């Protein structure tokens, strides 16, 4: 498709060129001020001792047995979690992609649940699930008196919770890769005498390795980034990973805690970058021939075994994604923990508390304001970048795009520390600090989540044909008219789903907020974290239940809106 080249010397052309460059420059400045300057400060703090560039802090850290154990534990937990997450993700993707099971759409959405419920809430839910003296243990005691509940505050507990919260990342990527594998290859294998299992290991798995590697990368990075799960389960078990170690270094006051934390952040970043490179290479290596379109037809038929497979899948989904949340909701109604499961011990008091307590009320308010503002800012910035990237892919725009996508893969705890180091002291002219205000959080959220929006908006722009815009221009539509009447309606579905993701992520953010919050700028994540670590489990569960139900309601409204939209426009809103 030929692009409409702006008429040479035309006023509009020059204006457009200038505005593109202005936008790009502004974007670069913003990214440098909000991301690269903080990162530079962080590096300076880590590599400087008494004003000289030095590796002294690193030498000390990397010879410290405690630090080495932290690094070992981080790697061990992340690798094991990636393995088990891919086991769940690939298995589920295989059946959803190829088997002729019924209700695939419902299974698909049920499997995606951990993507929208924040990890620390799921962790809190599993803590209730495995609680000795909890409902599950009480029921289990009657059936199997000799079995005791496993201790979730342990290595396996963290790995288990990571696996059941992170598998959707592998599942979604593998699902689309599976569907893109040409049926011919599998047929060829079958003709050559391979049974189903052999075909899977000889053809399907090798051909989907690039998708799986990409998924593994996401799981690994997201485990590195995680703070809530390892803090809830690791701290009581004295298991420390890099993110909790950095957090504890920062909050435990001692003379040089910032430089120590900065050095640990550098180590964490290096691990993140190295593992990204390795998995990215693997993904490239295994990139194989695929069809462009996803083949949605089932490829094998289970016949009489179908009902068993369906039942197994649903039981797995139910146990993994629903039962823990139900125990969480149940705990939020408890008067006294351990007081037994009967009506006398039930109360609405915990909900009354979280809605009347100034801290949690403030958190609800702050998180809503923050997530609305973040989503609004990200949708504008992200959509502009995405549009320019697809339609006017100059070198400058590419640079901006690749720079903006960096913060998303940088663990939030590092970003938080970098922002503190840059912004804690008062700003030069106005002599005020934005540190300890909600604006600090807003900055960090925008920096973290803009790339998420870009990805979704890009999908939207790619799906629309440039000829529509050209038609608008030919019909005499100005810049504003072209955007409001043509471009925005066309890219709306993909853009708004990106906006929804940003909204939910910002609403429940914990990792960065845990460092940047202060009295008056509490967020939902921070208050749930504080309640849990102070031992107010019932309050934490009540607030978490409110958050979960709000998110589910939002998703349902979104599904409904997009269904209406689809009905009227005939477009596929995913």
């Amino acid at each position, binding site marked *: 498709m030929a692009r409409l080249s702006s008429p040479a010397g035309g006023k509009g052309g020059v204006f457009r060129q200038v505005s593109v460059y202005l936008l790009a420059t502004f974007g670069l400045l913003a990214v440098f001020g909000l991301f690269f300057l903080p990162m530079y400060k962080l590096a300076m703090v880590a590599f400087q001792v008494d004003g000289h560039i030095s590796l002294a802090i690193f030498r000390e850290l990397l010879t410290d047995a405690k630090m080495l154990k932290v690094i070992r534990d981080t790697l061990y937990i992340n690798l094991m979690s990636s393995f088990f997450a891919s086991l769940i993700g690939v298995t589920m993707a295989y059946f959803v992609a190829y088997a002729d099971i019924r209700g695939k759409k419902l299974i698909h959405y049920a499997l995606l649940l951990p993507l929208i419920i924040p990890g620390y809430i799921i962790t809190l839910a599993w803590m209730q699930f495995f609680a000795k003296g909890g409902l599950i243990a009480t029921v289990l005691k009657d059936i199997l008196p000799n079995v005791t509940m496993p201790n979730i505050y342990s290595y396996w507990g963290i790995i288990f919770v990571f696996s059941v919260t992170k598998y959707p990342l592998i599942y979604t990527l593998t699902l689309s890769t599976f569907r893109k594998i040409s049926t011919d290859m599998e047929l060829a294998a079958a003709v050559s005498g391979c049974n189903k299992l052999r075909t899977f290991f000889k053809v399907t798995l090798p051909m989907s390795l690039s998708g799986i590697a990409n998924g593994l990368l996401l799981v690994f990075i997201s485990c590195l980034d995680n703070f809530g799960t390892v803090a809830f389960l690791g701290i009581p078990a004295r298991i420390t990973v890099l993110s909790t170690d950095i957090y504890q270094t920062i909050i435990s006051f001692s003379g040089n805690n910032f430089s120590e934390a900065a050095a640990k952040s550098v180590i964490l970043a290096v691990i993140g970058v190295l593992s990204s490179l390795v998995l990215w290479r693997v993904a490239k290596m295994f990139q194989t021939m695929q069809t462009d379109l996803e083949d949605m037809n089932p490829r094998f038929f289970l016949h009489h075994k179908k009902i068993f497979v369906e039942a197994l899948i649903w039981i797995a989904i139910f146990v993994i994604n629903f039962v823990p949340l139900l125990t969480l909701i149940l705990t939020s109604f408890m008067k006294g923990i351990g007081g037994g499961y009967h009506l006398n011990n039930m109360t609405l008091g915990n909900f009354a508390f979280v809605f009347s*307590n100034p801290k949690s009320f403030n958190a609800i308010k702050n998180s809503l304001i923050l997530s609305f503002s973040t989503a609004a800012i990200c949708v504008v910035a992200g959509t502009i970048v995405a549009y320019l990237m697809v339609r006017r892919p100059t070198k400058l725009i590419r640079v901006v795009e690749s720079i903006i996508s960096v913060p998303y893969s940088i663990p939030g705890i590092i970003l938080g520390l970098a922002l503190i180091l840059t912004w804690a002291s008062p700003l030069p002219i106005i002599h005020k600090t934005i540190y300890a205000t909600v604006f600090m959080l807003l900055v960090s959220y925008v920096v973290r989540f803009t790339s998420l929006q870009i990805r979704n908006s890009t999908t939207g722009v790619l799906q629309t044909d440039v000829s529509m815009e050209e038609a608008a221009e030919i019909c005499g539509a100005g810049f504003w008219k072209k955007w409001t009447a043509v471009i925005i309606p066309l890219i709306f579905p993909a853009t708004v789903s990106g906006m929804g993701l940003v909204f939910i992520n910002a609403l429940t953010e914990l990792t960065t907020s845990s460092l940047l919050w202060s009295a008056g700028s509490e967020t939902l994540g921070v208050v749930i974290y504080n309640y849990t670590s102070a031992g107010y489990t019932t309050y934490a569960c009540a607030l978490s239940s409110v958050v979960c139900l709000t998110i589910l309601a939002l998703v349902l409204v979104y599904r409904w809106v997009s269904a209406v939209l689809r009905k009227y426009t005939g477009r596929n809103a995913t």
Partner: protein
Amino acid sequence: MNRKITRLFSLFLTLAMALSLTACGGKKEEAPSEAPADAAAEESKGPAVSGDLMIYTSAEDAFISEVCAKFNEKYPEANAEYYRSGTEEVVSKIMAEKMTNSIQADLIMVSDAATFENLKANDLLQPYDSPELGNIYTEFVDPEHYYYGTFPAAMGIVYNTDLVKEAPTSWFDLLKDEAKANTVMPNPLYSGTAANMLLELTRADGIGWEYYEGLLDNEVMIVNGNGGVINSVASGENAYGIACDSNALAGAASGSPLAFVYPEEGVPATADPIGITSTTDNLTAAQAFVDFMLSEEIQTLGRELIGKAPIRKGMEVPEGSLTVEERVNLISDAKELFEVREGEKEKFAQMFGF
């Protein structure tokens, strides 16, 4: 119809863009709007109790939020707010704010006196002669009046009444076989009462560091705060716990199967002291808040709401609680404890692998 709907949505998205622009704009407008608020705080230095007041505390959310609400009710011109975390985190925050010259707290109320000696040594506090002095137990008041105990608390043993048949009487009962891998305690690196207990028990005759070694050998579980201990014992995860008397008795009062004992060797006693920061810009309100905390109204509230024993002499204590006179208190000189506090915490961290 089709066009109408799309136009509607394009309008919506344009609105979202506009919203984000105003959100950006709001950032700039915020700076000048804060200035008058500061000016108001400046003016409030007169005798009237008014203006903003920030309390950094480790007291329970349910309690301190109620105290702030009642204070604001009594002084409608004033606006008391709080920040709550474990003692050690509250202190870290204050220290970090001191480094960047941005101390927000007007008052600090955390669990133990040694912490206040630390704050005092860092020039973070100022003295105050409260008119309530004559009505309260002076064991918990700083001789130089930099801080006042608010509720005398004691660490002891809490146990699950469904799981434990014979009530423990001694700290050493937690080293027995039935308590093996069945005991939970708060973390001295998070909780101030736990840190104070560490200092008192390790220097007490016949207890010492051997006791903590014994706990470690007996596979004690460690959670952040006293609240976590209560949950763990109430749910039956552990049969025994080390906790503050008020937390345990409040848990029992809410229907959990709990009981509390004051071990015979003596109990590390703390009193959630409160002190005024040296940097406060609202001294009148801060002093009024200290008096208010020691008043009969708030002392009664603490007893009824969260099972705290009052610091005022002659007031009733909660059910199951012992008065200050009735129990064997372990109270060392706060200055001495402060000297060794960080070192002992570090020793604990090494020993328990934190």
